[in-house]
């Protein structure tokens, strides 16, 4: 399966979610999937032993007003363009803006999306324009994944949809099940 992992950065793993992406990418690659990370950061750390490709999605500078909108939103056009130029079976996003950009562009025949959602907190949900609406839109159009049952309860309470519980440390075959579910229907 050709899998795109979408993360704004893929450098030296200082970001906890970046470390999750790197670990997942390596495990999927070892399970003989073709894995590509699409990032936009200044550092692209690809080690030959990873068997993971890295694509740099262009990202314009974020102008001032965008700071009141979702983080990494400015990378949406470059991300969609990178996906259009490739042929992935499934895309797995780790940032809300990435998940929203791909699901909102579904008419362009982009791959189905899995989204690893953060543990939702009210203050976080309301701290950006339209963040809550974007989260609901993504929940309707993608497979949302959370790391544990408590996160799932919160997600369901605020977004009114039950996500799937899938921890980063779960075996690869569980991730494969999610991806297979997306590609089959």
């Amino acid at each position, binding site marked *: 399966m050709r899998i795109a992992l979408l993360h704004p950065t893929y450098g030296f793993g200082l970001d906890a979610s970046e470390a999750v992406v790197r670990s997942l990418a390596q495990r999927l690659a070892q399970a003989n999937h073709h894995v590509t990370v699409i990032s936009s950061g200044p550092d692209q750390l690809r080690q030959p032993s990873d068997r993971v490709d890295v694509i740099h999605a262009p990202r314009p500078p974020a102008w*001032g*007003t965008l700071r*009141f909108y979702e983080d990494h939103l400015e990378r949406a056009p470059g991300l969609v363009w990178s996906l259009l130029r490739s042929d992935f079976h499934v895309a797995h996003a780790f940032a809300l803006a990435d998940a929203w950009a791909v699901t909102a562009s579904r008419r362009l025949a982009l791959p189905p999306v899995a989204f690893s959602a953060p543990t939702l907190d*009210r*203050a976080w*949900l*309301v*701290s*950006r*324009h*339209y963040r*809550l609406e974007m989260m*609901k839109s993504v929940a309707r159009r993608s497979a949302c994944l959370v790391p544990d049952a408590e996160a799932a309860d919160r997600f369901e*309470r*605020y*977004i*009114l*949809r039950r996500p799937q519980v899938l921890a980063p440390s779960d075996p690869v075959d569980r991730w494969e099940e999610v991806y297979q579910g997306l590609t089959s229907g």
Partner: protein
Amino acid sequence: MACDATDPIPEIAVVIPTHNRETRLAFALDALAEQTMARDRFEVIVVRSAAQEGPFTAAPAGLDVRFLTTPGSSGPTDKRNLGWRSTRAPLIAFTDDDCRPQTDWLERLAEAADDETLLQGRTQPDPDEAHLLRGLARSQSVTGPNPWYPACNLAYPRKLLEAVGGLDEAYSFGGEDTDLALRVLSTGATARYIGDAVVDHCVVSRSLTDALRDAVAWPTFPLVLSKHPEQRQYLYLSVFRNEAHALLYLALAGVALRRRAPRFAFLAAMPYIHHHLRGALVDENRSVRMLARSVAHLAPRLLVDLVESAATLASGATHRVFVA
């Protein structure tokens, strides 16, 4: 779930009408679950309309909430009436589904309550969202006695609601809360502002389309002036809903006279422009960027003010009231 005659009577009933804002309602219910007042002293009643489709939010753990439904697709007036009539609590507190009461809200209202006083609390933009209050975004702010009595933070003794028959269902949307308060006060009751009973109101992000939709969404506001002409003293210059509308008409007069008196046209437009830019000019964190953003928002705000004023004039004509 109906109120049983054998159930203990709470001191306060909180009534929340809601429509298609389930996540915001969840935030409001979570805030009520954190009230310092003991849970057995108050009850919460949420009222939806039958036309609303799910999924619906559930009550938070440990907080008993009664969910009621009005028939068809009804507005906040019918919902509030159903809510207060379904409880036997002697004090009815109204708030909205986009508000979050602070933890001591009910305690402060209970302390101040008596049988002859309607209580108006303080409302402020939610501190977690206040930084988003710019451009076309809107919120609610009540920082002192407000003659329009918005229902986001009001409490009534039950007997006063019974005396006036509750909210007037002639109001579809807009003005029903003001009308209720004025009818209650006309019975000889008094109003009291409780600055410590605080509700945080969400900041609603709006596109231009959303703002234009809101501008025409208060068709029964002029009905308040028709039934309570004394409220006209609280309008700007006794005619305009707010200062922006008055300055808009001055600017339009300038536009109309621009060929004969171009200098007047320029001067007539300045107060309106200053009205919308003054926040950026006096803010302690003012900057060129903030001013540029305010200038960029001028055109959309002009359009919203035009539509809002035209809608107010039109609905005023329906109720034979001149208000712009």
